[in-house]
């Protein structure tokens, strides 16, 4: 879907990366993107690239119209592109509630930039990928628009099969790479990188040649490739995708647009990168859950799941699905569950109006089931639980836990095993 708009817009340096996942079946590479990846605004990604010496268009960032105007003048460029900074894609065709059409504007006259920015900043931009009311634009990017004579595709990613970083490139840039891989697999090139060694000169040059950079551009491209790899390692990325990596009529190799995915696990040593995370577009329930060390993911069903261990949580969702129900969420309490966590988890679940029943599935390995049972009864009483509750407990001290639930006098349905629990939860909703 992106291919059509890509060629036209990208040549002007517009952001074209789609949020769609790119699958390179043919080259046996797997793109991995955790669901809650760290999302960076375009200007933030470009700043990171700039810091690693990657060639990007000259740009400024502005929070006010006057700053934008000032930036446009300072750029002193033949042509200027003004871009509203939001995380959602489809900006080019978006509409502002100020009436302005298009989140991306090209102009040769720096004087109009202030006026345009005035109609962007503080207004909501609605695109195909935003919520209905759009997303408020707080920042704009003012960049030099460059012409592109040729577009290539280049990416570095962590690959399971190769047990390390892999570079993937294609001379067919600027368009949907999935399509390229599908139709002309011979135009996809792959280079496995030794994680201890990094990118070797011969590898970078070979890739540059494969991308069909000629003459002096080849060395320039190879240099860019090495710098992109440095960036990839420096920021703990799981993927750096440059599309297009292009050349200008002036004979420069430039990264026109890039999408960087980060390794969540590296947050502790990438404080400055993660500090850029704009949480305003994140789910508040997930954030609240994280406070209590709970892993929560909202889904669109109506049976809330409450499970310890990611695997068991997944299996629980499966069995609910199998018996005709739909999970409302995925909630993993982790291995060492505390009574307080149980209470907070219940609070989260009951606050969700979609939830029509709650299914608890806990296997107490190192956890005492009685603690869970106490947490459940306490939460039920204090939160005045309105929806049916089905509980399956197994493991350490389970008999005591069952006794606590039985004698609590609360309307709790006990289940013998996972299947029984799922059936009872689904039945509770049908009633």
């Amino acid at each position: 879907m992106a291919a059509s708009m890509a060629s036209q817009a990208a040549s002007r340096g517009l952001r074209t990366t789609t949020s769609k996942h790119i699958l390179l079946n043919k080259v046996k590479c797997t793109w991995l993107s955790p669901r809650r990846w760290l999302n960076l605004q375009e200007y933030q990604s470009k700043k990171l690239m700039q810091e690693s010496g990657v060639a990007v268009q000259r740009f400024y960032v502005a929070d006010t119209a006057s700053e934008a105007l000032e930036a446009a003048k300072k750029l002193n460029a033949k042509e200027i592109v003004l871009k509203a900074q939001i995380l959602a894609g489809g900006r080019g065709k978006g509409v502002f509630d100020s009436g302005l059409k298009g989140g991306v504007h090209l102009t040769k006259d720096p004087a109009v930039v202030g006026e345009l920015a005035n109609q962007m900043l503080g207004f909501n931009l609605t695109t195909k990928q935003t919520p209905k009311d759009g997303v408020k634009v707080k920042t704009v990017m003012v960049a030099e628009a460059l012409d592109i004579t040729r577009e290539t595709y280049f990416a570095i990613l962590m690959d399971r099969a190769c047990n390390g970083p892999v570079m993937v490139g294609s001379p067919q840039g600027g368009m949907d790479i999935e399509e390229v891989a599908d139709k002309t697999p011979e135009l996809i090139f792959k280079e496995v990188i030794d994680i201890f060694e990094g990118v070797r000169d011969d590898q970078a040059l070979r890739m540059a040649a494969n991308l069909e950079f000629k003459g002096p551009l080849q060395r320039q491209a190879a240099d860019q490739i090495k710098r992109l790899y440095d960036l990839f390692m420096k920021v703990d990325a799981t993927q750096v995708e440059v599309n297009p990596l292009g050349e200008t009529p002036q004979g420069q190799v430039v990264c026109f647009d890039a999408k960087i995915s980060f390794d969540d696990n590296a947050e502790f040593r990438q404080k400055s990168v993660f500090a850029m995370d704009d949480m305003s577009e994140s789910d508040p329930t997930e954030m609240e859950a994280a406070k209590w060390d709970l892993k929560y993911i909202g889904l669109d069903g109506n049976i809330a799941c409450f499970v310890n261990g990611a695997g068991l949580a997944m299996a629980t969702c499966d069995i609910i699905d199998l018996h005709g129900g739909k999970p409302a969420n995925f909630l993993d309490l982790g291995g060492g569950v505390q009574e307080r966590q149980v209470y907070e988890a219940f609070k989260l679940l009951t606050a969700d109006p979609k939830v029509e029943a709650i299914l608890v599935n806990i296997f107490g390995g190192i956890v005492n089931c009685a603690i869970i049972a106490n947490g459940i009864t306490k939460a039920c009483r204090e939160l005045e639980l309105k929806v049916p509750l089905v509980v399956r407990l197994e493991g350490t001290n389970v008999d005591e836990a069952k006794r606590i639930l039985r004698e609590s006098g609360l309307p709790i349905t006990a289940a013998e095993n996972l299947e029984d629990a799922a059936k009872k939860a689904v039945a509770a909703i049908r009633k």
Partner: protein
Amino acid sequence: MSPPAKKSKAGLPAARATTLFRKQTKAIVWGMQTRAVQGMLDFDYVCSRDEPSVAAMVYPFTGDHKQKFYWGHKEILTPVYKSMDDAMKKHPEVDVLISFASLRSAFDSTMEAMQHPQIHTIAIIAEGIPEAQTRKIIKMADEKGVTIIGPATVGGIKPGCFKIGNTGGMLDNILASKLYRPGSVAYVSRSGGMSNELNNIVSRTTDGVYEGVAIGGDRYPGSTFMDHVLRYQDTPGVKMIIMLGEIGGSEEYKICQGIREGRITKPVVCWCIGTCATMFTSEVQFGHAGACANQASETAVAKNQALRDAGAYVPKSFDELDDVVKSVYDELVANGTIIPAQEVPPPTVPMDYSWARELGLIRKPASFMTSICDERGQELIYAGMPITEIFKEEMGLGGVLGLLWFQRRLPRYACKFIEMCLMVTADHGPAVSGAHNTIVCARAGKDLISSLTSGLLTIGDRFGGALDAAAKQFSKAFDSGMLPMEFVNKMKKDGKLIMGIGHRVKSINNPDMRVQILKDYVKQNFPSSVMLDYALDVEKITTSKKPNLILNVDGFIGVAFVDLLRTCGGFTRDEADEFVEIGALNGIFVLGRSMGFIGHYLDQKRLKQGLYRHPWDDISYVLPEHMSM
């Protein structure tokens, strides 16, 4: 210990061992995880191992020391080393490292461990190790022929031989799932939670677990499903294999290939969880970092079908996994492949005291009791009152003292009176014996506590102790119905001093303002002051004899406090008497005067006063003239 099955040829990666754990396997545990280590030792004990599996622990944040553990009924000491090098050198028999290092330090400690050729297996428990680091760990492990279990795992278990950390849960679970002796079924799963579930299923449907490994939920586990399935294939004791896969990745296809190529010949029961993911329109990342399908072939549904096609035993749903396991097992028993062994009851491991108590199995009289303060809950509680409420109600110092000393919430006037008593007793100059002692002590360079206690130690019958004595004397006289005159006469006749009467300088004409303030307050606020009135009657008589025989501050507080205890309505007469009896009143003086003593201490330090030496001319030396023999 048998030599590991590996020899690295130049350039070629070393081969990994088929058998990771034996009944003699010894491990080093990285990290101060005493609970997990005790769990391992208890497991070893129920498995009838000859020796504990944990040879040593490594913990860089303390010095070398020994940690106490239980081995059955006995207590044993396990060495803890600051340096991994030392631990390895001192325990050359160790070939397993169990790393409880945090996600920040796991990389360094794992890489360090791999520099020691004695280590063949490393279990990494930490979840959330950056991918770039895991990649390096795996690459190094490949080169060295080390088997990595994890990261992000609970570990694994080999009944009768070895248990990694918390795998299998607490001892109750181990016993319930018969994990103390080997069965014929080996499994590999991703998560620890599911391995509990599998232990349960396998123990119910077969002769038990031979070995089970949870490879961990990371995108890039250090060892894969296939690594372990192949080990199981090559292990004679394993008769059937269970693999619990997951949405995401393509590892499961290697099993398919292995079956097709005849590399895997033992029956394999498989299930991939995450089948529900297909019903969500958006892509869902399930808890495990690796659990995300990025293409159609990575979905659980597709993988289950592929496994089924390859000839694995795949149930229709996770529900039916146990049925399939049972039918495969039953067939193996029927055709004679498996001959279930005779059950031998495991040795009993004594239950931990704290656990038994949590389960309500035992009770014991406490050797310590308290009825005034509880710090265990969400909030600090003084005699039943949460600290927030104490502040909300503005109970003040007097109120807190009422709660902690008398277990009562005293009326406001009483609280204020206590505070006033503390204020007037706070200090009485540097010359009194207590302050003097404090000052001398402070000037000798001693610390605050020494100086304060040095002053407090002078408090007794002669200094400050008159409160109690006065309260006792006056109330005894009053209660026995003696008239004030009779009381004074009796004391005179017995040759006793009336406590709380008399002042060095103050007199009826030069009243003590402290007493004056307190007297006005009591008269205005106390519902009754019979004891004070009685004492004032006594004072009338004594001052008529000598003007300085007034009711002094000690005496006043003593009697007024008796009035307070008897009439504020919070105490029975017996309780009121008991408080006087056990020295509550003296406490007021001690507490009040401590303020003064501390003041004197700080004052002396501030003034930089040097060591005090009493001048000779102020000492009269009256030694015997001459000691002649």
